[in-house]
């Protein structure tokens, strides 16, 4: 199967290269892989994820995502790539002045889908994450777990090639966390979406086969 993500001797740094976070990392991730990335706090897990959606540019090596070389990609191409990604954040990053339904269809709105399609998709996705009755509410009216389900629905709305999740259950209780893992497992299994999750701990209830990378001392290592 083809690689969705391919990193070769990748080095990521802040402060114009002065503060190296990840050094000389090489790994490949294929279509349909479910990948956990773990590591101690401050090891560079979120930095790697930011690099994958083009927020941070590698200072050395190559990083290719969905066929686009992020070391040389222009802003326009990066924007295009992001429309094929689903991104989930620990702090949800929902737009508080928009309704839940409007938040869910943000990627469709960006892609220029008609209002009819957006409404149909919002209805379907909210039903999928069991939030149909909250469609017209605003994010602040929902609990943390419900907000993260909105975040997952948004990430799934355009059938993304890859889902990147940064500590998606970091702020949630056990029940809400299990719901989120369940939704992500389904996405990977049914849609063959590649999923990369940055987390402190791999959930014990997880039932799908997965790959596990650890970030330690600036290196990215796969655990077999």
């Amino acid at each position, binding site marked *: 199967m083809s690689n969705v993500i391919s990193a070769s001797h990748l080095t990521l740094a*802040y402060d114009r290269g002065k503060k190296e976070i990840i050094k000389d990392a090489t790994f490949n991730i294929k279509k349909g892989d479910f990948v956990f990335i773990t590591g101690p706090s401050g090891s560079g897990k979120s930095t790697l994820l*930011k690099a994958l*959606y*083009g*927020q*941070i*540019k590698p200072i050395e090596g190559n990083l290719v995502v969905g066929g686009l070389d992020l070391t040389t990609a222009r802003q326009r191409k*990066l*924007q*295009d*790539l*992001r*429309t094929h*990604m689903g*991104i989930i954040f620990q702090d949800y*990053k*929902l*737009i*508080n*002045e*928009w309704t839940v339904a409007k938040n869910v269809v*943000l*990627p469709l*709105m*960006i892609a220029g889908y008609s209002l009819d399609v957006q409404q149909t998709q919002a209805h379907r996705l909210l039903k999928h994450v069991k939030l149909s009755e909250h469609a017209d509410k605003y994010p602040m009216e929902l609990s943390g777990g419900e907000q993260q389900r909105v975040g997952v629905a948004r990430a799934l709305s355009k059938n993304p090639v890859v889902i990147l999740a940064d500590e998606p259950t970091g702020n949630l209780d056990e029940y809400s966390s299990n719901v989120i893992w369940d939704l992500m497992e389904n996405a990977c299994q049914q849609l063959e979406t590649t999923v990369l999750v940055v987390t402190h701990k791999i959930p014990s209830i997880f039932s799908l086969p997965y790959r596990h990378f650890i970030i330690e001392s600036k290196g990215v290592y796969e655990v077999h």
Partner: protein
Amino acid sequence: MKFIKNHLMFILPLMAILLGIEFFLVFDRTTDSYERGLKEGYSMLVVAKKTMTLEELKQLNEHIDSSENIKRENIVDQIAKGISKSSAQEILQALPYFYSVRLDSYVSTSELEKIKKDLEKNKNIRNVETFGSSYSSNYRLFSFIKFTLRIFIVFMGVISLFLIIKQMEVWKYAHKERMQIMEIFGAPLMLRSGVLFKIALLDALVATIITGAFFLYLKFYWAGKSGIDIMMQNQEALFRMTDIAILLASAIAIVVFAVYTVVFSSAGGQE
């Protein structure tokens, strides 16, 4: 209430800038016509040994616009009452030629001095009287009023620009998160800034309409009854329909500048 306040915080300084622009336009038109009046009311006297054509005078200085020959017979008639015809004829022959000379613009006093010197360089010109003292006081008063009003308008514009920048910071704070989230999901610049553009363009339109309405009121109701000569005489210059286009274009230019400043300073971009 918050909605109205947010709009007013942008509309009011924008209106101040538009008022400044419109005052500038009106003042320029009014002073132009006043300047024309001063120019037309002013002439210098040239005394020449022999007749001089306008072209000859124009060659001496480019500011000379027209000249009028003062008939020597009229002068003789005034000064030679009761004397014989032959004596009057002798006086007439001895008299130099007088010309009332008008200029093409209302020049400064130093320029006036230069014109005088240029004319006096010609060997046929015996004397030039510029009536410099009254000209100078008029010119200085006129220049002073023009200068202070322009300074006031510029000052008002700068203060208003600061208020707009302040409001841009409020916008930035209010819209930053939404624009950053949209950017992460790949929204192009125009989509990210769409909401801001709609708000700002609406404000620009409102500010233009209010400013235009204010000047239309001044033109059609206030100026005629004001009792101020310069206003009553220049009522037509108070507001022209082309001013609407100038005000709207200025308001839109300010809005585009304001919105793009917010959008670019809110962008996450690449680290």
